[in-house]
């Protein structure tokens, strides 16, 4: 099976010393004026183990180091034969080329804002049944849940706006998600020039000092996963559903 790691420029440097899944070499092939970085895997399904995820990521990051522009491919994309791969790339060549220009010279930084009140929140479960089982107690509990939800939403929006005000000037693009998980106020991804990652991390650190009620964790630099193009209506549903 052909396993695809990334899309990059047709004239990208050789990947002769790079290995991916199953220890097999990463290969490159030019199709429709872009280079497809791929490898061969023994069969499907490809297990999403921590080891395999890091091996996939290692190949994409190797491409990112060697080339100005890289579009990381989602984990697990395989093709039964070269013809199927060629047809797909031919169909989406223009979108992929535009996508490469969007991320050229850039990396992605991740930001995660976690409430320091996690332990308090755990002690007050929104679904805990009140000792008083009357209808009135139930309604009061639900009203309190809604009040907490709105307070969390406001808090997440406020910190998100502060993050954007400080970090957007450094970025070509950005995206965020409010309240993605319990105790996580927001996650965000920023597309920044490669040489700005240290400044970005420093700015995020300063923000952390200004907001002692939360923890602001910065990760990266990553390949630009959040800024990869959707290729078709079906792909868009899968990617953004």
């Amino acid at each position, binding site marked *: 099976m*052909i396993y*695809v790691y990334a*899309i990059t420029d047709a004239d990208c440097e050789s990947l002769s010393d790079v290995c991916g899944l199953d220890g097999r070499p990463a290969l490159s092939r030019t199709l429709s004026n872009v280079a497809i970085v791929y490898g061969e895997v023994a069969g*499907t*399904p*490809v*297990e*999403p*183990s*921590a080891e395999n*995820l*890091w091996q*996939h*990521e290692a190949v994409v990051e190797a491409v990112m180091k060697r080339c100005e522009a890289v*579009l*990381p*491919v*989602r*984990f*697990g*994309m*395989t*093709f*039964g034969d070269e013809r*199927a*791969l060629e047809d*797909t790339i031919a*169909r*989406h060549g223009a979108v*992929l080329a535009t*996508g490469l220009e969007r991320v050229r010279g850039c990396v992605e930084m*991740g930001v*995660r804002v*976690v409430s320091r009140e996690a332990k308090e929140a755990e002690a007050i479960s929104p679904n805990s049944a009140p000792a008083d089982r009357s209808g009135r107690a139930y309604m009061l509990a639900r009203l309190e849940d809604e009040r907490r939800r709105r307070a969390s939403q406001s808090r997440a929006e406020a910190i998100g706006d502060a993050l954007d005000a400080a970090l957007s000037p450094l970025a070509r693009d950005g995206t965020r998600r409010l309240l993605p998980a319990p105790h996580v106020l927001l*996650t965000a991804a920023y597309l920044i020039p490669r040489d700005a990652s240290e400044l970005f991390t420093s700015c995020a650190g300063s923000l952390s000092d200004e907001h002692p009620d939360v*923890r602001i*964790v910065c*990760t*990266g630099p*990553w390949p630009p*996963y*959040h800024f*990869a*193009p*959707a*290729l*078709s209506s*079906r*792909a868009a549903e*899968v*990617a953004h559903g």
Partner: protein
Amino acid sequence: MSAADVPTLADDDAALQKEATLLDLVDRLLDKGVVLTGDVTLSVADVDLVYVGLRVLISSVEAAQRQRGGAEPIR
């Protein structure tokens, strides 16, 4: 428990950084990136197992670090 066994704020931040990096890796590789119209060889059950596996991995790494009394380089 001695003072050396008590996790410090720095240990806490290091653990949070490591956890955030792993979670961000999983989020990106399994939910973002270019979706080619090939065969997606991943099932929902596989994704759940990844999260469970990562939690176990994080816990075991943290436990090993505490025993050694040192911190690994943070990504």
